[in-house]
């Protein structure tokens, strides 16, 4: 066996390691047995039906979607503006600013969660949905900045300058030229922010008010008992959502950009 085939075998094993456990979750979610484990006693969709009828889980999905959607909107807006500044302008302190903007991911999430919670408690802001939202915005924003910056680098200002010199106002130029050009970057950033928010658990456990659960905290709470087939089914739904959505998004973005001929 030569070196290369050894490396290939290793890589195959690593991919199996990454995906096999998740595959087992999906497999077991179709298990007819009332225990969330082996052996498989038959194929059934009953656990998905149970999920649909479980109010707590449906509520958790609503909270997660609302939170993720609002987080994506806010952090993408401020993140895209900041990325424009960093990519398109030279100014004193730029290096420092770009480090500062990604600071929230350099701080461990627990520390960020504690600091924000205690500070807002001190200001008499109770644990609440807005606090949860602020928390999610601050730690998703750096990811938006990183993703959008990486995409913005390739977009030159020539087209905008052409529009300006042909008499378009800066506002017109922004909405008719800049924004459509930025659309894939904005989309990528928003998707990133949504997924990170949708998946977050550590900060959420600190910030969420009592009785409010997001999907991950709901799963976490259900795990305290034992692993039930319902959790596996919930896991499968989450995988379909969080893997399916970005893949769909990427396909959509590719279609849009190819239609534009870019």
């Amino acid at each position, binding site marked *: 066996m030569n070196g290369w085939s050894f490396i290939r075998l290793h890589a195959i094993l690593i991919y199996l*390691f990454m995906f096999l456990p998740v595959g087992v979750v999906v497999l077991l979610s179709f298990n007819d047995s009332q225990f969330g484990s082996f052996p498989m006693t038959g194929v059934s969709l009953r656990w998905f039906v149970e999920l649909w009828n479980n109010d707590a889980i449906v509520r958790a999905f609503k909270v997660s979607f609302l939170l993720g959607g609002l987080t994506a909107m806010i952090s993408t807006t401020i993140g895209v503006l900041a990325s424009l500044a960093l990519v398109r302008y030279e100014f004193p302190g730029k290096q420092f600013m770009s480090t*500062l903007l990604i*600071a929230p991911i*350099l701080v461990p999430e627990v520390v960020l969660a504690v600091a924000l919670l205690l500070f807002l408690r001190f200001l008499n802001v109770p644990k609440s949905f807005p606090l949860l939202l602020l928390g999610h915005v*601050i730690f998703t*924003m750096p990811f938006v900045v990183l993703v959008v910056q990486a995409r913005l680098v390739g977009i030159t200002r020539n087209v905008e300058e052409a529009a300006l010199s042909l008499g378009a106002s800066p506002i017109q130029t922004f909405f008719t030229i800049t924004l459509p050009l930025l659309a894939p970057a904005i989309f990528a950033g928003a998707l990133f922010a949504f997924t990170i928010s949708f998946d977050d658990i550590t900060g959420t456990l600190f910030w969420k008010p009592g009785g409010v659960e997001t999907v991950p905290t709901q799963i976490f709470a259900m795990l305290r008992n034992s692993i039930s087939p319902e959790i596996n089914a919930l896991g499968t739904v989450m995988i379909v959502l969080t893997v399916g959505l970005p893949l769909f998004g990427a396909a959509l973005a590719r279609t849009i950009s190819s239609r534009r001929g870019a």
Partner: protein
Amino acid sequence: MASTVEARETRQPWILLSPALTAIVLLLIIPLAFIVVYSFWLRTAAGSEQVGFYLDNWKEALTDSFYRDILLSTLRIALITTIACALLGYPCAYFIARSKSGNKTLLLLMLILPFWISYIIRTMSWINILGVSGALNTLLVNSGLLAEPLQLLYNEPSVILGLVHFLLPFMVLNVYVSLEGIDESLESAARSLGCTSWQSFLEVTLPLSLPGLAAGGLLCFVLAAGTYITPLVLGGARDAMFANLVYEAIIVQLNWPLGSALSLMLLFVLGLVVTVYNRFVGMGQIAKSFGQE
């Protein structure tokens, strides 16, 4: 006219940056400064806070062997996880980087996929594998290799396994990005000058890929050391990590000044690691991997 355009050029970046800066200052910088102050306050027996300058929390956080032991074991777990990720991830990244372009797209896509799968689900998926009635035990008992299922979960190795599973894609991606940036002709040049392929790897490729290895290592270490969920899901009662202590102090005991001191301790230790990394490698290396979609 020229001067107003110039003035706009200098003002504009700051206008664009202002919402993000406001958010960072109000939601990160001031809260961090606040818990620094808070950590010197005192929680009285009555449950209220005594404003002032007391060193009690810091004394407790720094001298109590309970906190020190858990801090050390947290750092040890993070270090083992990082090394395991490096050893397992490097060859895999090398394989992706040297694959033909068609396969490479698929391999990269499959490398990104785990990032999109929920962390809590990836963590709990190991219960299905290693649990008493999990896949592995079922297999071993059914095949007659074991008479009784083994308890493979709820210990330190299973925590580390969960962390490696979670963090490996970060490592592979970062190493891949730096390998991809190396001119392949350098390696063939080394070979044509008489190096074996192993030598040319050791002398040329490996040193050039160290920044990516360091970036992946930093991410793995910092994320592992700050873990809160993995020890709760895959660890036993004695496998608490430092973040669990912080949660305990803040949410369960409601001892906010002590919780502040403990969080700052974690921040300080990990901040030190980040500073050393930044000094030798620089933050730009991590940003590169975000160009990969």
